[in-house]
């Protein structure tokens, strides 16, 4: 059984068909890339998967369960973790405080009037682990809003990881990053994927990143599923080449 299955999902905004009958199966432990020109509907597709809004048509199944009608927060608690195209963090909190909230919410402690000693230690350990895993340990005391683009994205990914998700959805994780930051981010994603057998879906513009990371690639174009396959197959696909040449990303 696939971890995620999208069955012919569509999303219309008025007369604009942003996503048209796109289906997708992602297996456990897979690293999937979604590519396509600007405005192809990639982010909208993520929004359908994660429950940002309901699909006009179609179904979303996650972990063998129909989640089409579940709220975003329910899907998150079922194990969908998501980053956004523009990092969504708590800018006026330190990196550690950002993670603390994520850990406390993720472990169901959000309504506790009081954390006992044991629970407080558990939270601290979880934060330290995620900080170490994402290379943010030395920046833990900084305000998240003051960090570089790359570190803000790392903070967002760290927060999502703190939830211990089963599926990680990353929307253009390297967009706007300098060479070194891109390199670090790719290394981070790969490490997370390898070490935890985490299932990852990433939307990505940078083709080097895509071909470096992805097991399989899905191509969207003007809301439609244009192609899906192994990186080599996609690179050789004439329709994909036409889409990219006809409308450069």
């Amino acid at each position: 059984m696939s971890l995620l299955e999208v069955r012919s999902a569509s999303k219309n905004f008025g007369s604009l068909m942003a996503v048209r009958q796109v289906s997708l199966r992602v297996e456990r432990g897979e690293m999937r890339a979604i590519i396509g020109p600007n405005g192809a509907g990639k982010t909208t597709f993520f929004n359908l998967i994660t429950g940002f809004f309901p699909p006009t048509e179609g179904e979303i199944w996650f972990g063998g369960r129909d989640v089409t009608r579940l709220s975003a927060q329910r899907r998150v608690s079922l194990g969908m973790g998501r980053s956004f195209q523009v990092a969504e963090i708590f800018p006026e909190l330190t990196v550690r405080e950002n993670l603390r909230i994520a850990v406390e919410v993720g472990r169901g402690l959000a309504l506790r009037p009081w954390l006992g000693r044991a629970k407080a230690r558990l939270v601290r350990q979880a934060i330290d682990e995620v900080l170490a895993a994402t290379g943010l340990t030395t920046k833990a005391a900084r305000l998240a809003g003051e960090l570089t683009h790359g570190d803000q994205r790392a903070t967002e990914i760290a927060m999502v990881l703190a939830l211990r998700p089963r599926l990680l959805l990353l929307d253009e994780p390297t967009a706007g990053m300098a060479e070194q930051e891109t390199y670090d981010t790719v290394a981070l994603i790969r490490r997370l994927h390898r070490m935890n057998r985490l299932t990852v879906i990433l939307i990505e513009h940078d083709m080097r990143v895509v071909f470096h990371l992805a097991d399989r690639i899905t191509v969207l174009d003007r809301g439609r599923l244009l192609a899906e396959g192994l990186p080599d197959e996609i690179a050789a696909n004439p329709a994909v080449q036409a889409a990219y040449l006809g409308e450069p990303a």
Partner: protein
Amino acid sequence: MSTAIGERALDRLPVSRYKWPGTALLWLALLMVPLWVPWAGGYVELAGRALVLGLAAMGLNFLLGFTGVMSFGHAAYFGLGAYGAGLMLKYVTGSTLLALFTGTLLGGLAGTILGALIVRRRGVYFAMVTIAYGQIFFYIAYRWNSLTGGDDGLRGFARQPLGVGSWVINIQNNATLFYYFLLAVFAIATGAMAFRLCSPFGRTLIAILENERRARYLGLPVERHIWLAFSVSCFVCATAGALYALLNNFADPMTLHYSLSGEIVIMAVMGGMRTFWGPLLGAAVFVVLQDYISSITVNWMSFIGLLFVLVVLFFPRGLLGILGQRGAP
């Protein structure tokens, strides 16, 4: 933090390493009110009024300052607290504490139930519905003459002395003792709010305030947490309203009116909604100016309005914000 982009959001919380001196000073000042207020030209009842309205403004700010959700209808719960306490004393019991408890429960539960119906609304819609709720209670109190006294308000009750074992504390006629009664209730209510804010729950409120989308995508049931904050804030306003009825031995339909809701918002914003104690300062300034200026002109509200505009324009963090983020309690 040397290069802060702004303040640190957790600085809103009432407890931290560098806040305790300010907080200690504040409590000292509150405890000594009967000593210094008359010396400064005021009177103890006025301080009691500031304390009670300050509690209401702090209650509103539990919602406004810590989740960013604006209500223009909190007078409804304040007024229900006042009528709850007044009706209890008039028709049912001679116990001041029971009246306080009833008023708190009436306003708090009404807010909790009504809050559940509107937490999905945001911004202007939320504010409009809160006003509408408030006006419903206003008209009930206004029309139901036989029970509530209609537009004359509810009279014919008085707070009773507190009996503690064989002790009798005469809060009825002794203004100083009654002030300390108010202060004790104030301490419990603000202590409960501070405790709630310094828990994981308090941090979730700041998370919603800082970035609602991220809060939701951490799996936080945002609506439920806003509802809980709304509920806490209504309970506190209801307590304040009940105290207000005890203070005046009178429940006024204007305590239910949206104009009072607006005044409570003004107190919170003017005092500093980014701080826990700011609304208390706002209420104190409001009450003192009202007392002073209304003896000179009937247009006292335009003076307060002017002051409010000046504060919002020049000190957007409110009066307590002027004292500096670090030193402020």
